[in-house]
């Protein structure tokens, strides 16, 4: 199971309009990614809430199709 980098980006941007999303395929296997997301929607939210917003944008794919996505959020 794998997920395309562009697809991940699309899901996040749909849920967080205007966000700047940088994704790296860490192992080149379509399974281990790292994403840095900058969005004004994160302001005033805890880190846990921010990460949940990103997980929610992936509509249940995290932990299933998407094995590993390291997340870094910035306001």
């Amino acid at each position: 199971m794998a997920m395309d980098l562009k697809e991940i980006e699309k899901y996040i941007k749909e849920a967080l309009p205007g966000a700047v999303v940088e994704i790296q395929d860490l192992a080149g296997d379509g399974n281990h990614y790292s994403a840095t997301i900058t969005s004004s929607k994160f302001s005033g939210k805890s880190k846990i809430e921010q990460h949940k917003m990103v997980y929610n944008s992936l509509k249940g794919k995290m932990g299933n199709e998407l094995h590993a996505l390291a997340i870094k959020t910035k306001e």
Partner: protein
Amino acid sequence: MDQKIKELITDEITNNPVCLFMKGTPDAPQCGFSMAVSNMLKILEVNYKGINVLEDQTLREGIKEFSDWPTIPQLYIKKEFIGGCDIIKEMYENGELKKILEDKAINFKK
């Protein structure tokens, strides 16, 4: 979710001030993310209980629902969900993890 699993998780986080739900054990982690958090706690000399979710599929799914968090590892301190690997790593690097340990009166290497 399954009542038994809910009780088991509640018991673990109540009886163990620092609880890490992880893949594998502190001595033999089975996943890089679990190993990373485990190592940070070891470096800080925190006394913690590692709970191997790979031994029990219902626990593995149950903890995700319990915390409303889709990934493993998950760190609990004094019954509070602190975060997964990325958040703990960030908190370790910027000093927030030490602050939480201090605030919650957990012994660690200062």
